[in-house]
């Protein structure tokens, strides 16, 4: 587990460096190298998760496992998105995030007996759908950041070298919308199964701040999807809504991690 983890971490770090170097140098060779390093990193990350299973440890034992899986889905998602459109700058935003999630996941991941028991049934569905949903929303956030950067440059009429390498606003906007549309149902399933799982485990847990934040996040994404089709909510508004929704998710994950660290 350690070996694959460290190799994955090293490859993600190298891919991050190469993606950033590509943004700065605009060299196509560096971009190709970054993509290949990422592909190998994703494969290695898969082996790391598979290795956990072989050791009879549940890769989805807790929030740490979920973060680790999210990191993998995020990096893999970037590889898939890369097939459809060339957004080199997205790599410079998303790969560091995948690296961070993988590292954070490893730090707070449960080992020993708890990991062998792990989450099953409702918990497994909750954590899996959360990992997939969060990865989609994280990708959408990355795309939204690029959208805001590109849009701002166009409005200010100051297009730099990086702007010239970014896809058109339309492409970024559609991609972010698709990712939110894909991530939202997964996030909904995750929230619903999370509530059911916690109720099954502890009965009623009473009010917790993370429940309120999760509800607010759900409302933001639901509102975004509905408002886009009815009122044409798109562009900057949609980008900011996506970013704030993702930041809400980060806050919830941090609360869970802190709560877990505090026992």
């Amino acid at each position: 587990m350690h070996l694959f983890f460290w190799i994955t971490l090293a490859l993600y770090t190298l891919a991050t460096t190469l993606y950033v170097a590509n943004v700065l140098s605009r060299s196509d060779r560096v971009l190709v190298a970054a993509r290949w390093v990422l592909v190998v990193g994703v494969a290695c990350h898969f082996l790391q998760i598979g290795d956990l299973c072989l050791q009879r440890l549940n890769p989805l034992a807790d929030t740490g496992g979920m973060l680790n899986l999210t990191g993998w889905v995020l990096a893999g998602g970037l590889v898939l998105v890369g097939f459809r459109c060339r957004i080199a700058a997205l790599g410079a935003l998303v790969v560091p995030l995948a690296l961070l999630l993988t590292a954070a996941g490893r730090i707070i991941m449960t080992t020993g007996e708890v990991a062998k028991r792990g989450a099953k049934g409702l918990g497994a569905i909750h954590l899996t759908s959360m990992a997939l949903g969060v990865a989609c929303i994280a990708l959408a956030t990355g795309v939204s950041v690029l959208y805001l950067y590109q849009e701002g440059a166009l409005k200010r009429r100051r297009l730099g070298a990086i702007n010239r390498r970014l896809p058109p606003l339309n492409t970024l906007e559609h991609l972010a919308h698709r990712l939110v549309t894909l991530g939202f149902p997964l996030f909904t399933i995750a929230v619903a199964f999370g509530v059911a799982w916690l109720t099954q485990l502890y009965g009623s847990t009473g009010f917790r701040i993370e429940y309120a934040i999760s509800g607010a996040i759900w409302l933001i994404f639901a509102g975004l999807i509905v408002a886009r089709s009815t009122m044409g909510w798109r562009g900057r508004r949609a980008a900011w809504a996506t970013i704030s929704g993702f930041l809400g998710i980060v806050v919830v994950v941090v609360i869970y991690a802190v709560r877990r660290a505090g026992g």
Partner: protein
Amino acid sequence: MRFLVLGCSFRTAPVDIRERLAFPRERLSECLAEIKEITGVREAVLLSTCNRVELYTLVDHPNRAEGLLKEYLSKHSGLDSDAIATSTFCYVGDEALKHIFRVTSSLDAMVVGEAQVAGQVKEAFAAATDADTVGPMLSRCMQRAFGIAKRVRTETDIARHPASISSVAVDLAKRVFDDIAGAAILVIGAGEMAELAVRHLIGDGASRIHVANRSLERGQKLADDLGAKAVLFEQLEEHLIWADVVISSTGSREPIISRDMLFAAMKRRKQRPIFMVDIAVPRDIDADAGRLANVYLFAVDDLEKDLADNLAARRKEAVVGEEMVLEEVELFLAWLRTQNAAPVIRQLRQHFTEVVKFETDRTAKRLQTNGQSDDKAMKAMADAIVKKLLHGPMIQLKRSAGETGGGTELRQAVRLLFELDEPTAEIETEREEL
């Protein structure tokens, strides 16, 4: 043999001289054949465009060839020798290579980085290939030039910056819409600049084009020219609902699209982005309209500023391109130097093959007629081959040993060629005894 470039460009000759020096496309093959007939010209490519007329050649004696080629140009254009001398340039050797690489990479173009030049050089090379006036050297040089041009285009941002007002407008539109071909375009007014911008858009695949002009008749004429559809100017508010790209250039004294008009249209089009270019002076579109969400409005000043920035950026990128060219010239010269050894290598191989063939044939005959044993025949053949191959070198070694300097250099060369070790002490003693 050396590379020689002779010609004129917009830098050295005015258009009236270039016109006379230009070669008509239909006569290119014939002219190339005439150039190849000139004494000392081994290979030739002829590039004739509106901005330059250049001869890329491989010649035996550059000085003599330059004079003869100038005579040819004088005869072809009807210009006297003084006019030819003042309006042409001539580069030889690495300078010639550098020039060919720079021209093909569009570093010597009027608008640095324009894509057209490499295509024109390719056409010139194809014409020369068809006329059978290019050989291995010039062919290799031209192929390298195309490789460098590609490298300059892909490894620098030289071609990423549009270099005219209309292309700047189209480039900006492409920053908003991924599919210009599918975008609905509305041209307001029938001005020349708007027409140019639309023609650029058409070049990028745009097909859904509508023209709205106060005079429907004039609008219809432009629409017919562009293969577009004329629509009523009075229904401008309605047109703003479906249009993705708006190019406006009317002669109106007042803005024809107000902020409120656009705000209402944006609401009805559910905030789908709209890209607007206002080329008119005074402006057709209220400047405040550009502040609305999802509206991307560019006035002529913005485009001009962009154009100036782009041209400066191209010049900056060209410096990187120049470095690449110098690098590639060095590489090509290194390759050329390796070609100097080629004839000797060929001769040596032929000589060795002939000796071996002669001896093997002789041995085969002996075996048939004399009935000599195989072992004996093989040994005799090997000895004979060694003797014959070493005969020449040994005579030269002995002869040079008797000359001033004792033939040290030749001995060292032989050791180097046959990878022989330095003589041992034993051999040295034997030599001294002799």
